[in-house]
């Protein structure tokens, strides 16, 4: 879009201005998509829990930018951003949140269980840390077949206190599987601060003992995430060995929809939230684009409006989509046998 503008030193080596704009627009889509979730939820169009990713957009965007078409990823229940960054149709994601048949999982998984098999997205999981051992298996299967694919596994700081995560990290290192463990440290496991929950507050430090390279990086600056992720994923793809990266980030909203401002006041201050909001990855990337002449004010506005329109279209699509037929209740329990209908 601004290809004629010379690349300034501040842009990481492989990043072109066009690519940066694409990634910026991905973050905008994630933000607008999730901002449309709250009213839809309040209107009763969605059920269950609603964990939004607002504030953390640079993490999924910066890492997933380096995934090849044949790579894999798994993540936790805070998975809207990951699916959108991977290129999954926002309309089908929204339809899943609405419990509609056109959703990515036919409406059977909901917000916490997004999936996109075609893009190697093997799902969002609702058990904290539960999918981390699965990533080791995916990595093992890659080694078994001898390809240079990689698997990204996203989880939060809370997962670092789950036993199976430590079994998985140890086994990943034993079998030298090509998995990038991306620990998104947003500082709170629900309302429990990482400093309280972890005897060693640096999670990268804790992971060091598992015999794999580890690193702590900032997660609010898209350029930093992009640059670090590129290096880490290239290392895992070519070595191969697992890598543990702790990404320091922050969720601006509550843990979930029920974690309202009154509840949030129990565990964090307005000043703290404000401090992190100053580091909003979208605002800062926009500033960077402007300052370097990669975008004009009017382009930024246009992209913002486009992302919002995409989000609204997703809502409209979801709203107009049918609920799953009742036969779906008994489908997909097994691949090859019917479950008896008792009533």
């Amino acid at each position, binding site marked *: 879009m601004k290809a004629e503008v010379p690349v300034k030193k501040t842009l990481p080596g492989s990043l072109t201005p066009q690519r940066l704009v694409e990634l910026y627009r991905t973050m905008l889509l994630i933000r607008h998509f999730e901002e449309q979730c709250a009213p839809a939820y309040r209107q009763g169009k969605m059920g269950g829990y609603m964990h939004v990713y607002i504030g953390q957009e640079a993490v999924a965007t910066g890492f997933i930018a380096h995934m090849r078409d044949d790579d*894999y990823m798994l993540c936790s229940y805070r998975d809207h951003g990951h699916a959108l960054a991977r290129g999954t149709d926002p309309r089908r994601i929204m339809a899943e949140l609405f419990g509609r048949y056109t*959703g*990515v*999982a*036919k*409406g*059977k*998984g909901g917000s916490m*269980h997004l*999936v996109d*098999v075609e893009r190697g997205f*093997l*799902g969002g*999981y*609702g*058990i904290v840390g*539960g*999918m*981390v*051992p*699965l*990533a*080791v*298996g*995916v*990595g*093992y*299967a*890659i*080694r*078994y077949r001898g390809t240079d694919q990689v698997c990204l596994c996203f989880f939060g700081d809370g997962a670092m206190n789950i*036993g*199976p995560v430590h*079994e*998985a990290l*140890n*086994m990943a290192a*034993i*079998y030298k599987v090509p998995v990038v463990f991306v620990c998104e440290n947003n500082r709170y496991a629900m309302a429990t601060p990482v400093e309280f929950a972890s005897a060693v507050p640096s999670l990268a430090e804790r992971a060091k003992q598992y015999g794999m390279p580890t690193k702590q990086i900032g997660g609010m600056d898209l350029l930093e995430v992009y640059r670090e992720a590129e290096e880490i994923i290239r290392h895992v793809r070519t070595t191969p060995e697992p890598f543990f990266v702790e990404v320091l980030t922050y969720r601006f909203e509550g843990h979930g929809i029920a974690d309202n401002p009154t509840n949030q006041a129990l565990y964090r201050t307005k000043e703290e939230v404000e401090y992190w909001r100053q580091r909003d990855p979208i605002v800062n990337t926009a500033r960077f684009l402007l300052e370097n002449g990669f975008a004009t004010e009017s382009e930024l506005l246009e992209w913002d409006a486009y992302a919002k329109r995409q989000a609204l279209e997703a809502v409209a699509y979801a709203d107009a989509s049918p609920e799953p037929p009742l036969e779906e209740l008994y*489908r*997909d*329990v*097994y*691949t*090859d*046998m019917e*479950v008896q209908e008792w009533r």
Partner: protein
Amino acid sequence: MAVITYREALRQALTEEMERDPGVFILGEEVGRYQGTFRVTEGLLQRFGEMRVVDTPISESGIAGMAIGAAMIGLRPVAEFMTFSFALIAADQLVNHAAKILYMFGGQITVPVVFRGPAGGGAQLSAQHSHSLESWYAHIPGLKVVAPATPADAKGMLKTAIRDNNPVIFMEHAKLYSTRGEVPEGEYTVPFGVADIKREGRDVTIIAYSQPVLLALHAAQKLAETEGIECEVIDLRSLQPLDMDTVLHSIRKTHRAVVAHEDHRNVGFGAEVVARIQEFAFDELDAPVLRVASADVPIPYARNLERAAFPSEEDIIRAVKRVLA
């Protein structure tokens, strides 16, 4: 037909399936260099190499999760638990992941994985090594649960389990590994969801699975010889899917039934069988269906207490006589 042990039959199934399908691999504690704690995997490391016979740390969640993850992208892992009592540590992986991935992702990801290993007790291993948990797994939609009692069934059903596209809980019994039986030559499989009439009879139906099938057969033999009572012994073999047709058909003939298993009686698997019998064949019954099961206690160490905790041949004989009284 060759007469081989239950453990040899399992090993034959593993060997044949690994030769047939390069995506099949084994993982578990001591399955490789140590040749398997119950010697089921003896020689397989030497034959198939360490990529396909994978020694693991003592990390049940890690083992189960790794198997599930590999299965999700198309391999066919066979994960061995040293006992199903230890598999409790992996319960989240089995119940929340293996069982639910197909459904919660709308049928798009299959999990063709087998979790196998010894269940039950009887060697004075006391409470933490002697648990029968089949009813727990059969309770969870998405898991198939099988428990073969003979070498022939063990071989044919393990082959079926490995080829199945769903997660299969394959329960062996520690006391069965050294038992012998005829195993057909050549390629064969035993389907899930088909109970086997191990002995025909007209007076009482004994419904069992796993090691208690052998107790039931001994009891039936004794009852025939000493009392002239002819018991029909049904080996369920497969708990999910469950073949109630064979059971109900037999009850329409005998009008009396005893369910025998090593699971606890309270909320045990037999309760489900009895419930379905009363639901579908109430009018056929001439007596209440009785259950023979383990005492509702943690399994004790002392030999006499342990013997008293587990169901015996005598318990089955007593139950048969009661339903006939």
